[in-house]
């Protein structure tokens, strides 16, 4: 949706928030939004005490086509469960609507938090004093997600709970199938990486945990005071916590002057140490290596899906073509490097 149906949004939110005189003050679309259209909406109404109330909301709308098929209900449930997890900041959820007729597309709404998500921003002068602490916090929060008790919180209604020993095969088969279903050409490097992963599976995790699925710089809000909210849970599932750790350390997010560090700021070893301090787990290095190669396969699956949808005539056009242009072959180079294929 390139335009937000503001009047319909106003009508809907006035009911959802039980605020008859609610009005939309402003609405603006956020940049990026490969998987969903995201809008910031400021609203105002008169509170029960007669005083004016103003609130910022974020609306996440299902697009007609997405890099990943909509898992909005999973995303909504994950936000709600993590709201109760100590040390994991997430926004308050307002409503989740399946009916596309209400505002033009299925969507959910949540409170708008302060902060920026832009990866380059953390290297700017505003964050000079706080950037190291923010990166430390990033991996401590990820550890807290791994440690979270999710049983009995309703997640079983929206996601399956795999047996620990099945997780690697379930995940690898899932993304392998996505690559096959979105065929854009033969990919000999990715196919070789998948065979490599199948030849040497990782040990099962100590327990099945919440996995964010796209935990990285760029998917959380931060201010000079620290991280305010973990966002973009659309790939969340139950699985092996090392999947998230490997993803967060991926070379995709190692930008700036020092490519040995995430965001030029934190080495993998430092990050692992912070993660271990809050997760209570030891990161098995061989298993982490397996999940690192898996990360590259999963990334290729995402870029392949986007490229396929672009070639099929997606209305979101260049937004889908861009990641495959930018990352596909670099991802293959990282696979080769990680596997050590040339040295063999």
């Amino acid at each position, binding site marked *: 949706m390139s335009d937000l149906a503001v009047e319909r949004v106003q009508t809907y939110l006035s009911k959802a928030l039980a605020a008859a005189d609610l009005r939309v003050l402003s609405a603006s*679309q*956020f*940049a*990026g939004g490969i998987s969903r259209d995201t809008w910031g909406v400021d609203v105002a109404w008169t509170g029960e005490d007669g005083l004016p109330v103003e609130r910022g909301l974020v609306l996440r709308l299902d697009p007609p086509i997405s890099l990943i098929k909509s898992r909005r209900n999973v995303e909504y449930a994950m936000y709600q469960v993590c709201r109760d997890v100590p040390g994991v900041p997430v926004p308050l959820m307002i409503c989740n609507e399946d009916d596309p007729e209400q505002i033009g597309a299925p969507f959910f709404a949540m409170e708008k938090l302060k902060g920026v*998500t*832009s*990866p*380059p*921003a953390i290297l700017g002068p505003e964050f000079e004093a706080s950037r190291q602490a923010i990166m430390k916090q990033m991996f401590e929060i990820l550890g807290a997600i791994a440690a979270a008790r999710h049983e009995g919180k309703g997640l079983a209604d929206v996601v399956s709970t795999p047996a620990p020993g099945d997780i690697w095969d379930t995940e690898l088969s899932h993304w392998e199938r996505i690559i096959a279903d979105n065929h854009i*050409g*033969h*990919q*000999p*490097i990715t*196919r*070789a990486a998948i*065979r490599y992963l199948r030849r040497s599976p990782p040990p099962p995790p100590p327990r099945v945990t919440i996995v964010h699925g796209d935990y990285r710089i*760029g998917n959380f809000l931060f201010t000079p005071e620290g991280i305010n909210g973990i966002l973009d849970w659309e790939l969340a599932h139950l699985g092996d916590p090392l999947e998230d750790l490997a993803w967060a350390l991926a070379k*995709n997010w*190692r*930008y*700036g002057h020092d*490519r040995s560090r995430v965001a030029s700021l934190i080495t993998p070893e430092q990050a692992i140490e912070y993660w271990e301090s809050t997760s209570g787990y030891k990161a098995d290095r061989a298993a982490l290596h397996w999940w690192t190669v898996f990360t590259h396969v999963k990334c290729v699956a995402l870029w392949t899906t986007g490229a396929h949808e672009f070639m099929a005539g997606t209305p979101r056009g*260049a*937004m889908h*073509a*861009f990641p495959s*242009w*930018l*990352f*596909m*072959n*670099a991802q*293959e*180079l990282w696979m*080769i490097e990680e596997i050590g*294929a*040339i040295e*063999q």
Partner: protein
Amino acid sequence: MKPSVPSVLAAVLRGIEDSSRAEQNPVKLFELRILRTVIEVINRDWDGAVPARIAEIDSAMSLLRRGLPLVSDSLRDELQATLARNEATRSDLHLSALDKTIDSLNAGLIDLHEYLEVEMHCTYQGRRELIRDIWTHLEACARRRAVIEPLWDVA
């Protein structure tokens, strides 16, 4: 002679940079960044697009030919058919035709690579060398296509 395509694309890139500096809308800025990336890649690859693809095709065909004596009869038949089919269409130098040839050869390389990995217990020394050379070929192809600098810091 008209200005070269790369020189025109370079001018277009400068125009995009100017527009980006003046643009306040984050969505439009992101779209300009996409446009800049695509033009940068076209500009980089413009002059060498055909010879790079021909070199890639030559390399892949050479690897498939080297694999013929090492594989099963059925796979040998498939690889020979792939080689013959692509040999017959090599005079077509359209980029789309060359890319189609590369994709077809990649299918053969996947089959050959997988076969050689499974048969690694066999002692024929050519197998290990061929696997190494397939990886070297694949790495060179990925490196040619990769967009690496200076775009890692895309938000």
